[in-house]
């Protein structure tokens, strides 16, 4: 009995060492595999955000980088800027308009794509094309189509009396914002489509067959089967679209550079202008931090609403 106990203690000891080593080496290897990702995040996301906060406490003329500590006065200045509040308002307008339009159009396209039996592959390719065509190409085509001399949409619009014959629509106080929303939605609606389409295709046909046998109409089938099934995905899509559109810089900048007279100057445009055209790097970083706070609120909603942690342990 005694010898047995000794033996088993020895065995336990040996095991506990290997177990500790084994666990450790497995954990180390696990962390090593994700280390590059962590480094990338640290380098490209965490550091810049920390740096932005730090820089926002200084006055930094970009051309002669001489840092002057000013505390929170950049934030005070931002909150006292009329252009900040107008950019926030325009940004909200751009975000809501784009998100609603993209949701409706994107969902509509997805439903059509899911139901048609002819040319589905072709039409899916068409939809993906809009998603994959680079923003700059979308912008170049738009600029060309709204060209005052020979733009096909310019001519169409002026013939319809929407704008004058010599008016560059994207440079028009009234039209600039709606057109930026429309052009952006041409490209980004498809995001909602693709998001929803995968989910739509995953709904088993037998659900509809069962409903048909019960005599459900198409509208009833959509309301009772399709919609509940894609609701979750739609919510994610709406939230992500809203976050992305609030932070949209490229398409607005390329189309209008925030003009005319600030009519399309959203927060990202204002921050960019402040940094690189008005030479106030510290002030721009204060704006970046404010945008980051908006992002963080969006992220918080995203995590609260969809609890991705649930997916994590699957």
């Amino acid at each position, binding site marked *: 009995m005694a010898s047995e106990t000794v*033996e088993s203690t020895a065995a336990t000891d040996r*095991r506990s060492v*290997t177990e500790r080593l*084994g666990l450790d080496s497995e954990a180390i290897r696990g962390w090593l595999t994700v280390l590059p990702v962590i480094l990338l995040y640290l380098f490209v996301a965490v550091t810049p955000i920390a740096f932005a906060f730090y820089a926002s406490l200084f006055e930094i003329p970009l051309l002669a980088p001489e840092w002057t500590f000013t505390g929170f006065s950049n934030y005070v200045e931002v909150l006292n800027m009329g252009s900040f509040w107008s950019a926030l308002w325009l940004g909200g307008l751009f975000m809501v308009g784009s998100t609603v339009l993209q949701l409706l159009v994107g969902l509509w396209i997805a439903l059509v794509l899911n139901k048609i039996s002819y040319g589905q592959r072709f039409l899916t390719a068409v939809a993906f094309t809009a998603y994959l065509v680079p923003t700059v190409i979308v912008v170049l085509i738009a600029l060309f189509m709204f060209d005052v001399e020979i733009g096909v949409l310019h001519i169409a619009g002026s013939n319809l009396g929407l704008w004058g014959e010599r008016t560059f629509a994207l440079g028009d106080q009234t039209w600039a914002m709606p057109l930026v929303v429309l052009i952006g939605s041409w490209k980004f609606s498809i995001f909602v489509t693709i998001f929803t389409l995968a989910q739509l295709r995953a709904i088993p046909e037998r659900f509809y067959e069962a409903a048909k046998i019960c005599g459900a109409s198409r509208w009833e089938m959509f309301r009772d089967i399709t919609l509940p099934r894609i609701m979750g995905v739609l919510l994610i899509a709406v939230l992500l679209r809203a976050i992305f559109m609030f932070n949209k810089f490229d398409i607005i900048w390329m189309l209008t550079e925030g003009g005319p007279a600030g009519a399309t100057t959203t927060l990202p445009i204002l921050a960019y202008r402040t940094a690189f055209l008005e030479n106030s790097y510290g002030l721009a970083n204060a704006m970046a931090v404010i945008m980051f706070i908006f992002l963080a609120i969006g992220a918080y909603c995203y995590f609260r609403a969809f609890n991705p942690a649930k997916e994590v342990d699957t």
Partner: protein
Amino acid sequence: MTVNISNMTRVFDAPDGRIVAVDDLSLTIDDGEFLTLVGPSGCGKTTTLRCVAGLDTPTSGTITVDDRDVTNLPPQERDVALLFQDIALYPHMTVRENMEYGLKIAGVPEDERRESIEEAADLLQIGDQLDKMPASLSGGQQQRVALGRSLVRDPSVFLFDEPMSDLDAKLKRELRPVVQRITDEIGCPVLYVTHDQEEAMTMSDRVAIMDGGELQQAGPPKEVYDEPTNDFVGEFIGQPAMEFFDAHVESANGTAAVALGGHTISLDASADQLEGYVDRDVRVGVRPQHITVADATEGIEAEHVLDEPLGDETHSLFETEYGNVTVVTHADFDGDDGGEYGLVLERSETQLFDPASGVRIF
């Protein structure tokens, strides 16, 4: 080669405490022996196999192959072959490449590889499938490829992890002799894990039954069938499962008898042999093959529930005060639903178990 597992324990940390998957298991598999580890799911049989393969490490205890302690060796250094439940053929390689992979790793020259693969393929009758992709083969053919993959490596231990549980009954019967031929060919110790007692009985030299992480009994198929060490083994081995009745041991003129259902069955044992159990409760176990159906005047009172004719015999279900009892009856037996019958236990085939520990006492 001999595989020796001694005092092996494997404990897992679970969120709600520790789970003892294998508890102090000792088992030896001799060279050329086909040993089947059988038990219900969660009994620790697969954990045992994974420890032997090196895919898992015991918490304590040792595993040796011949005199080499392999307890903590990684799977790469163990020279074992393992046939997985899900077959695990590489879907992106042809059948030939699948069979070749282990040899390639071992650095065997190409013409030697080709030779042994073709030899194995002929033995397994898959010679014409070598250039196909695994996905285009049937389930049985995939099993043969997996067997071939192990065969060409000529391992020193051959392990099977429920390889046939996803196959239909006909295919199982077809593959059993193939498995036996291949393992004979290699001639190494074979550890075969299954939850199917029929597979265990038909294929093995020795059957080891596990339950709750503990080894219950190990012995030749006939032995574990005829002389189960406890009620678990008695119930697990054999089809349909052994029936149990609560009874009371009595002594009449020095001969032991059990009282159940209002009458007594005298046993081929003296009261002395049942020392300590006289005048106490026991469980009586009888296989359904050794129960006969008689008139209501005899044996245990039973109400007929249904018959399952299998062609060569019938399984009849009765309701008794001991619960539902299955009886193997004659192929032509056709009971009256709800009719009253009596069940007579064959005297020489009754076994007695301790009601608390389950250990067989007679």
